[in-house]
């Protein structure tokens, strides 16, 4: 950029500026983020496995132990969100804390806490799914689409 800035046509200014922004913009520390996500996501999974083993040892069937494990993890995540810890964990671990079921619990409890000040119905009730809503909508839709595919194409 050697031309005098103000004499450039608007579109040119925009293009040059966005090039400049891309040069200046900090790169996310990908390796560090991936490492933290792997470690924390892995540890949450290990914790889940330990809980599941516990329920299995207590005589639950594999299916029931799975459900009980999910419920326990959700409870722990909800509790730590309430204590103000889960967002700190996610700030460090990124996807490692967001992807597991604990992240889903966090995304339900966080708005529930946030909108309590606007009342139970129009606050908590109306805003509970602000973050988790898209996950549910597209999750359920995908399950439905896959089930249809299975029904028409793959079922023996």
């Amino acid at each position, binding site marked *: 950029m050697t031309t005098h800035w*103000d004499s450039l046509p608007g579109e040119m200014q925009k293009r040059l500026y966005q090039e400049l922004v891309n040069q200046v913009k900090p790169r996310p520390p990908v390796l560090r983020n991936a490492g933290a996500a792997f470690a924390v996501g892995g540890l949450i999974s290990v914790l889940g496995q330990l809980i599941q083993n516990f329920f299995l040892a207590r005589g639950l069937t594999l299916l029931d132990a799975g459900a009980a494990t999910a419920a326990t993890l959700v409870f722990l995540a909800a509790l730590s*969100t309430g204590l103000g810890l889960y967002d700190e964990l996610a700030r460090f671990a990124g996807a490692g804390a967001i992807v597991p079921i604990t992240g889903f619990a966090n995304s339900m409890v966080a708005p529930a806490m946030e909108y309590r000040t606007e009342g139970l119905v129009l606050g908590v009730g109306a805003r509970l799914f602000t973050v988790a809503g898209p996950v549910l909508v597209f999750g359920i839709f995908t399950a439905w689409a896959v089930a249809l595919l299975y029904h028409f194409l793959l079922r023996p």
Partner: protein
Amino acid sequence: MGIAAKKIGQQTYFFHQPPVILSTATIVGPKEGQGPLGHTFDKVVEDPYYGEKSWEKAEQRMLEEAMQKALQKANLAPQNVDFLLAGDLLNQIIAADFTARVLGIPFLGLYGACATMYEGMALAAMLIDGGFAEYVLLGASSHFSTAERQYRYPTEQGVQRPMSAQWTVTGAGAMLLARQGAGPVVTHATVGRVVDLGSADPNDMGAAMAPAAADTIARHLEDTGRVPGDYDLFLSGDLGAYGLALANKIVEQKGYQIAGHFNDCGLLIYHHQRQDTHAGGSGCACSAVVTCGYLMQEMAAGRLRRVLGIGTGALFSKCSSLQGETIPGIAHAVAIEAR
């Protein structure tokens, strides 16, 4: 088009009898108190709720208290003041509205995003030098948690913020401007144009605001015929580290060299590594508390004689961002001189 008596160049106004900054007051949250400017604030509140039921109420209380404190320091009562100019980032600027409800001073609500404090200073100086007011009280506030909810996610939501993201300052700054008295004076104001060079990333507001800041700085120098050396410091509101670098480059492209004495309130207010604030502070309170605290004290101590403060704002909403709009920026400059 006629030429206005107090206008020079395209966007700059100079004050025949420069209005005096009689007093300022600041109040901030815990994170700001722990930052490098912690000692420059009048009050550090350790509880982000400030004993209130919601963050919005806490923010409003901070603004009200800063206003009261500025009045107190100048030994004035609300009924002595001709205008109250204030704004914030909440929908319908409720922190300012409710503060005006308590103070009972004739009120003009402002919205200039994070540039609100400087918009207020420019307008207040015009009201006084125009002969419409003897005293004008002005201020701005923001709160990390109310801004997060206004623009981003619930506070307890687990997210990883990008490196270019900024941290909204919790606090409020208030200033009392008068026709006469002792204190630094406001000599010029340059009202900014809205500039948009196509930035659309709400996590990189520095990039969205930098072109506006550069535009206003260059315009101010051109209009006044001053050179960068005439100012001890160019102090922008909340460009952050990357926005400041970008603004520097554009100002240079426009033919001015200010890099040596160009700083940003958002850079000054936090220990960025230790406090994990990424690119810097932001929000209405960022420029308000740094200007009303640090800057005033530096001027009083004689370490800074003449400063160009540049309030910077990103003009967008969550809605406009989701609808794919780019983010225009605005910047208002005010020249302050120690007397």
